[in-house]
């Protein structure tokens, strides 16, 4: 243990420890600090960008109007890479920062699930714009709220309305990603399909990061489905669309909100046309507030608004509303959110009326849009 080696080792630890302590110090500020958790880098960064754009727009409006009760609002970003482990780290950081009064996030259900126990223990109210997994409400134990619909609702809606009524088709092939979002969506779709009398000709799964879907598609197409359910996110969806067309499939494709992203059209190209998808927000179908929001968004970000941004915008709006009424105590904020449990006590935002049930879920309508001529258009 003698000699230069151990000295170098000791010096390194000491130096690192010093920098470390400085880095973990807490800053005090006279603003209202709200944590925003999501994937701001990594594969899912597109979603994080959407959330960022949405809350930033609302933040600008709030602070321009003088803040909440005179205090400006400050956002603290936590990058969770859409991964449970990072979600836990971010949750730990937010929970232990006494100056943060509430958290908007996370984006991915798996990260939210990882963070919720930490938030519950630290008594931190959390509101998510995008986490749609069924089980979060239970794990949240009253501290979790969301203003997006759950996958249970979306799956059934896809089966009963989109496939049966809108498209008028019966034979469906299901191609789902093997992750929490897609499996939940697939299960509720299958239940809905059974109730609606649809015939599921085949179910295949893929893991994240697959780029070659031809073997599974060949298998699914053998049974001659009339439409394919792209049960996953836009990236794989676009690749599947392209490869399905190459294999000769000409029918319509459909998917859930995971497909809703400009990259779907960009990557899918021609093959992306004739795809239908359900989304929680559609600018064309929204009220005057929604339309104004869509215009402001386009002006500020140079791209069309998407449902994640709209929900995130409303999340901050809901929080601002509640904080203005009850102040900055975490428990009080949670109680304020829980008190929004009926249509009268709900929040009217760009995405419509939001109010929560006893586990923090809300029921919101879904809209359908489709890809036509290389653009998203409403489907009715």
């Amino acid at each position: 243990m003698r000699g230069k080696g151990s000295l170098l080792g000791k010096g390194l630890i000491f130096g690192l420890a010093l920098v470390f302590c400085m880095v973990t110090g807490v800053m005090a500020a006279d603003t209202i600090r709200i944590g925003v958790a999501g994937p701001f880098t990594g594969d899912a960064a597109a979603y994080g960008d959407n959330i960022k754009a949405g809350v930033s727009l609302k933040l600008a409006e709030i602070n321009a109007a003088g803040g909440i009760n005179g205090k400006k609002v400050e956002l603290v970003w936590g990058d969770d890479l859409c991964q449970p482990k990072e979600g836990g780290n971010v949750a730990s950081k937010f929970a232990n920062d006494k100056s943060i009064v509430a958290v908007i996030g996370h984006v991915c259900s798996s990260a939210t699930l990882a963070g919720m126990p930490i938030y519950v223990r630290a008594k931190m109210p959390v509101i998510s714009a995008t986490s749609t997994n069924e089980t979060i409400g239970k794990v949240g134990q009253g501290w979790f709220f969301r203003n997006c619909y759950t996958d249970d609702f979306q799956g059934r809606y896809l089966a009963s309305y989109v496939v049966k009524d809108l498209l008028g088709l019966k034979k469906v092939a299901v191609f789902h990603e093997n992750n929490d979002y897609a499996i939940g969506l697939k299960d509720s779709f299958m239940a809905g399909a059974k109730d609606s009398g649809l015939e599921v000709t085949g179910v295949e799964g893929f893991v994240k990061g697959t780029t070659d879907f031809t073997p599974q598609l060949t298998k699914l197409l053998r049974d001659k489905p009339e439409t394919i359910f792209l049960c996953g996110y836009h990236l794989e969806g676009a690749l599947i669309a392209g490869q399905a067309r190459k294999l000769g499939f000409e029918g319509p494709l459909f998917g859930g909100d995971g497909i809703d992203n400009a990259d779907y059209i960009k990557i899918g190209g021609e093959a992306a046309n004739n795809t239908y998808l359900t989304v929680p927000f559609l600018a064309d179908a929204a009220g005057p507030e929604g339309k104004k929001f869509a215009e402001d968004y386009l002006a500020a970000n140079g791209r069309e608004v998407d449902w994640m941004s709209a929900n995130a915008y409303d999340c901050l709006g809901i929080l601002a509303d509640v904080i203005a009424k009850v102040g900055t105590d975490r428990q009080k904020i949670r109680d304020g959110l829980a008190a929004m449990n009926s249509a009268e006590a709900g929040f009217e935002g760009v995405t419509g009326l939001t109010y929560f049930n006893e586990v923090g879920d809300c029921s919101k309508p879904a809209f359908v849009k489709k890809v036509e001529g290389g653009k998203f258009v409403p489907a009715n």
Partner: protein
Amino acid sequence: MFLQQLVNGLTIGGIYALIAVGYTMVYGVIQLINFAHGEIYMLGAFFAVTFIVGMGMPFYMAFFLAMLCGAVCGMLLDVIAYRPLRQSPRLACLITAIGMSIFLQNLAMLIWGSRPKPFPGNTLPAWFNKTWHLTHFSLTGFHLFIFAVTIIMMVGLHLLIKKTRFGKAMRAVAQNKTMASLAGVNVNKVITLTFAVAGAMGAAAGLMVGAFYNSLYPTMGYVAGVKAFAAAVLGGIGSIPGAMLGGIVLGVAEAMGAGYLSSLYRDGISYGVMIIVIVFIPAGFFGVLIKETKKSI
């Protein structure tokens, strides 16, 4: 469906073969599993996209230039990372290889971002998109292009190894470095050039995959690299015809497995094959011939 799966399998198989050959060539000359080879495959794709989008080059030119860059990257890898460790124990070389792999992956993320990118549309030659719908399967021009390139490269490599002086030098170094050096072969130069050839082929494979499946991302080399390595092992590591055959067999097995059995364990098929082959027949298909003549130090 069988014929379509066969087409699918031969396509992926050809790609695996191109990458596998790179692994096996390098292993043959310096007995090192070049973990960073997958990253050269990835860089080939990214360089090509950069050339096409950033400099407006036509496809074929970008293709050749990307191969050239792959060769250069391979040489740099050898000179910078592996050559200084020629005399070091194997563990050090393996760790360096992994370190370079991680480094290059993240470097690519830094330069090009970690989000998957599409291959620039409409830059591929028009005949790639022409589709023939035959009775039991479909085929596109791109499929044919991949088959053609794969076959040309395999034949070219075979000729290189068997008919040229360089090929002879490579075989000599693979057999016994000391004796080759005594016979007048510049061992270091041969090794570096081997890396160059391996790199060029890997880059070509990466470019074709990126374009064909329309998705490029910095970690694409990781999984493809492991599978190609499984293919090389299957064929007998150190044997070039073995790697070619191993690649095709693995590709077809994967397509058939994903098509007929479970699509979720698709990657698992490669890992499983690799483990079984290594444990029970470490010499692979053609390895038996090589094992006897290889020296053990």
